[in-house]
């Protein structure tokens, strides 16, 4: 073996001053005119254990296109992926702890990935006070989630914490997804 196994570099908090570097105008808008799929807005609050909005959090999302394809060499169907959709976005929370993304409803995983998998958006949360990012997923309450193998392993409260709620408003569907970092309604976070 040519390369020795290397121990990981420890994570450290993103701190409060990341905006000028990590946040760019339009970084939370994943769609362009040519993007295929249903336009949606995902929005919500990031809240701490006291229910106080977190004004200095950063959310990163990663999702497949409207047919469930990722533009990445590890996806065997990558060549068919929508060229007008990168699937990656960043949004900082504002002074009221609110964030939003304009994106498309993701397609579900391919059937051969396992029965019943529901579509989802992968999320990473960074903030002052988080020494390492927190990983979660956004599922959609109006999809068929009952047989999803990840959701099925969670208790009812945990499952609820991952379901974005559809709200009507504006020309597109709006989905509310709050990230609750701590407390009785704490969002489910994953060890990936």
């Amino acid at each position, binding site marked *: 073996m040519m390369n020795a196994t290397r121990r*990981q570099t420890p994570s450290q908090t993103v701190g409060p001053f990341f905006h000028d570097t990590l946040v760019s105008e339009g970084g939370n808008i994943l769609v362009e005119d040519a993007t295929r799929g249903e336009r949606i807005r995902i929005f919500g609050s990031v809240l701490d254990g006291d229910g106080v909005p977190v004004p200095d959090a950063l959310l990163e999302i990663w999702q497949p296109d409207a047919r469930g394809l990722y533009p990445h060499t590890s996806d065997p169907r990558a060549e068919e992926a929508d060229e007008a959709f990168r699937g990656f976005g960043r949004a900082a929370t504002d002074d009221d702890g609110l964030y939003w993304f304009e994106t498309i409803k993701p397609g579900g995983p391919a059937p051969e990935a396992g029965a019943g998998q529901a579509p989802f958006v992968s999320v990473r949360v960074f903030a002052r006070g988080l*020494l390492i990012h927190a990983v979660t997923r956004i599922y959609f309450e109006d999809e068929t989630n009952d047989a999803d193998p990840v959701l099925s392993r969670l208790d009812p409260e945990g499952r609820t914490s991952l379901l974005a709620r559809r709200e009507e408003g504006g020309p597109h569907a709006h989905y509310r997804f709050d990230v609750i970092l701590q407390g009785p309604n704490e969002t489910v976070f994953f060890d990936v």
Partner: protein
Amino acid sequence: MEPSNDESSSDRSLDWTVHPPYLHPPYASTVTRAPRRRLVPLPECLASVTGPAFGAGDVDALDDDLTRNAVRTGEPLGERIIVIGRVLDGAGRPVPNALLEVWQANSAGRYIHGHDQHDAPLDPNFTGTGRCLTDADGAYRFTTIRPGAYPWRNHENAWRPSHIHFSVCGRNFLERLVTQMYFPGDPLLVLDPIYNSVPDERAKQRLLAAYDHGVTRPEWALGYRFDIVVAGGRRTPFEDYHR
């Protein structure tokens, strides 16, 4: 919360013997922000072995030179330094085309950020923000100014040791790390709750840049080396992913 030392933890991408726990009370902001429930193990899946691809379109020519990318009236003040290193995965393989983004205080210990209240001068020629891509060997290089120490209100007379924030986006969702690079011999390190949140002494050492005289340029700048090892690498990136 406590690291997830359940039966499957060895199969997880993140090495919890290395990374800080979410809850570390000496760092006061963790007390109300740290998740407390046990993390739920997530099997490897297509969403975790894929990720956005980065390339030349994501960086500009001067992005890797913080001594030149914000010049308005002249050169920024402070001690010029060169930071080089490599981004590797857990198997020691280079991670090419990783997007590195850095941010830091200026030589006086002041961030350009609008919320920074520290009574130290801004430098009109320094924003303290940069980015670059790793090359085929996983190597990167920044030129910048050594950041000053920075006071914060975590506890009485609290000062952060000089540090540069690093954000690393590798080839997939798992190869993602945000960390901070510190300088060897800084007397503030032993007092810093963020640095000392790392549970393992040898892991802490990996957050220190090494002075490297071979990188130092005569009559120009001191050189430091800072290698970064990201999570992931449970499979080779070239292995077919069978869903």
